[in-house]
């Protein structure tokens, strides 16, 4: 274990302190007979910048003031304060919750949100103000991804404190939920991490014993990686020093799944440490489609428009991104990871994977 994180208990205390600070600040203003206001970084697109050093999007210096004196501000102002008090209770009592739960729970306090989009946005406000991620508040997404490989973790969730699990215990893969996200790493025998977009390939890799043959941990994101999974990837890279290889479908959407893991998303520009700058996208590349003569489909109009957007995105300014975008435009075709099955089910593991592992320093 290279750089152990702060212990679960310390982190909990830090979160509670941050929330208390927000409440005190407003309380003090009321006592001074001021209409309370709160300052938060602006999340408008004009204040989002790509930081080449951090290799992720970050917020600029612009701030907005939300004031209870303003008739249009007072409602979101109150809502954010309610969310703060709601999650404070969650964290204090070691419970978790979901975005959807927050939406419904508001009704008990006559704080009804119009829809879940509104409550999600208020939670993001609280993230901006506090600098903490919603997972720190024990608010987790519903989507689940999974991990497999020779890593032993130690749980910190109530009832399981101190218990350990080796992530090869269940050959269908181990779900990445709140318990795993909050676990400590105890012992790792793998020396690399392979991130897969698709569940089908994940099963194939386990069946083909990739974890043993290549000493790898394997994660499947099931599409766009949930934020808690992105945090986990970063921790595995940072704390355990595992190089990361990402394999996605060969189309603009798969390419962007890899990019979000590497450089983060604009939506989360107000947060740090969600991305893994050192991770490497290994394919399916457009050039793979040519080199391996993969069965492919034509890019749709939607695909091409997306590709055009990516081309103008600063994160895509370097290789291999530029080359692959150019190649996609040239061949105007895309291929899925399963397309390798045309050469037999094990081809992808026997032939393709070893080639790609060279990108992160060989097998």
């Amino acid at each position, binding site marked *: 274990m290279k750089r152990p994180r702060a212990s679960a208990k310390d982190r909990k205390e830090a979160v509670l302190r941050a929330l208390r600070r927000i409440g005190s600040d407003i309380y003090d203003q009321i006592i001074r007979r001021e209409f309370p206001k709160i300052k938060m970084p602006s999340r408008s697109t004009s204040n989002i910048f790509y930081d080449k050093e951090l290799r992720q999007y970050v917020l600029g210096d612009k701030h907005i003031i939300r004031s209870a004196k303003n008739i249009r501000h*007072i409602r979101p102002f109150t809502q954010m304060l309610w969310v703060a008090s709601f999650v404070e209770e969650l964290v204090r009592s070691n419970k978790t919750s979901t975005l959807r739960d927050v939406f419904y729970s508001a009704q008990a306090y006559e704080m009804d949100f119009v829809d879940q989009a509104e409550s999600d946005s208020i939670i993001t406000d609280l993230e901006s103000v506090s600098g903490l991620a919603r997972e720190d508040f024990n608010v987790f997404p519903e989507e689940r991804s999974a991990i497999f490989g020779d890593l032993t973790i130690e749980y910190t969730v109530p009832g399981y404190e101190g218990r350990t699990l080796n992530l090869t215990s269940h050959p269908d893969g181990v779900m990445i939920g709140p318990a795993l996200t909050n676990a400590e790493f105890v012992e790792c025998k793998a020396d690399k991490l392979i991130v897969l977009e698709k569940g089908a390939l994940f099963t194939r890799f386990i069946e083909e014993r990739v974890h043993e043959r290549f000493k790898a941990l394997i994660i499947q994101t099931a599409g766009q990686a949930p934020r808690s999974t992105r945090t986990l990837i970063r921790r595995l890279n940072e704390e355990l020093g595992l190089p990361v290889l990402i394999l996605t479908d060969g189309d603009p959407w798969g390419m962007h799944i890899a990019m979000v893991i590497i450089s983060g998303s604009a939506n989360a520009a107000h947060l740090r440490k969600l991305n893994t700058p050192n991770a490497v996208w290994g394919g399916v590349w457009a050039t793979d489609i040519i080199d391996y003569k993969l069965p492919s489909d034509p890019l749709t109009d939607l695909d091409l428009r997306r590709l055009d957007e990516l081309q103008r995105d600063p994160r895509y300014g370097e290789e291999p991104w530029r080359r692959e975008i150019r190649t996609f435009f040239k061949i105007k075709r895309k291929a899925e990871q399963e397309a390798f099955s045309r050469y037999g089910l094990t081809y992808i593991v026997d032939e393709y994977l070893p080639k790609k592992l060279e990108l992160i320093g060989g097998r």
Partner: protein
Amino acid sequence: MEVFEEISPADFFYRNRDIAGFTNPTRAIYSAIRELVENSLDACDLYRIKPEIYLRISQISSRGEGPEVYRIRIRDNGIGVPPEAIPSAFGQVLYGSKYKLRQTRGTFGLGGKMALLYGQITTHSEAVIISSTGAKKIYEYHLRIDIQNNRPIVLKRAEHENADRWRGTIIEFSMEGDYTRAMPKVLEYLKQTAIVTPYADITFVDPRGRLYRFSGIDSAMPKPPTETLYHPHGVDVETLNRLIKSTRARTLEEFLKRHFQRIGDRTARAFLEYAKFNPKRDPKGLSPEEVVALANAMKGFDFLPPDASCLSPLGEELLEAGIRKELNPEFVSALTRRPSTYSGYPFIVEVGIAYGGGVQASGGITLYRFANKIPLLFDEASDVSWKVVNNLIDWRRYKVSPDMPVAVFVHICSTKIPYKTVGKEFIADRPEVEREILNAVREVARRLSLYLSKKEYAERERRKLDVFQKYLPKIAEFSAKLAGKEVPDIRPLLRRASRIEAA
């Protein structure tokens, strides 16, 4: 070898009666009613007489088969027709008093003659005309039309004493038709006519004896149109030739000043210099080529815009009154634009807007269109007003959404309405006309928007305080809970809030 023959105008229209709207029994009875009502209104309007019109349609006992036969009777209190003109005015096509440069309702100048002609060819009935100009006698004619020769045949003529000095015209005749199918359009036509002629009393008795009364309001009548001279921009070679032929002017300068509006001494000389004509030349001495050159020069020279005294708009008060009378809206406003011109023809746009009350929400703006005080009921979507109201105006800017009960009224007056097709049911999108309508509708929309804003303001003030009263206590509660303190007193803030909002 081809045999050549001549046919009369009456024969032409008999063969092509579609042109005047007599396409089938349904359309025919609608067109007949329209033509007669419009003739009657013109006979009053032009002399500032408050119209009182009585229209009755009765079904003549069924003939057993084929379309039904109806008896139509209309009575007005207009200027009346001089006895010697009655036979030709009602029994000869292309004879009338409307071939002039002023605004009237008639579309082709065929007046009610097509109705009588249609009645004659479907039922062979004679037309009864009773009229007086208010002098000592009332004259009664029974007429039929000699279609092949376009001449009236007088079957009977009578004179009656006019003790009460009654003035007006009565027309009665029979025709085939299908009133049952025509009914919705007929009633809509009368209702919209009542909007655009709010000073008129119109009484209608339908074939089942139902009485419809559209009462006129007590009000001054609009100024009638006066006949005017030509504007030089609206003249072609043929017109110029006619004027030259009939003029008594001895010089071109004199000729221009006498027969055209907007041409005085200075303009006449300036124009003739521009056109390279000697002002002293005798107009009758111009060669055909010179007449063409003169006509072209007239189109190119920059004259003052045409005089609009030949037009008779309704005026803002009357238009508002008409809308109020028939729709009883919560809000109404009307606007009469200043005269404008296209291709040498003067025109005036009037626009009204109505909201709420009797105006129904229709999923969009309800549009009423009028031309020279005639309602236009067909082909709405091809009309320039439809384009303006539905495509060119962003109603959200005026706080109007499609679910609101809003109606727009567009009235265009001109000596020549720019209809888009022969059917004369919708107006072409000439840029000059479109611009006038657009500006006018924008202005009344602005007024409606102002009304809606005021209505909203009081409502909003009340809601504001509610918001503070709802949220400030919660802010106090949650922040205290987070800070681990007692809930603070927010009454001072609430007091300040009410003051802020009152300001």
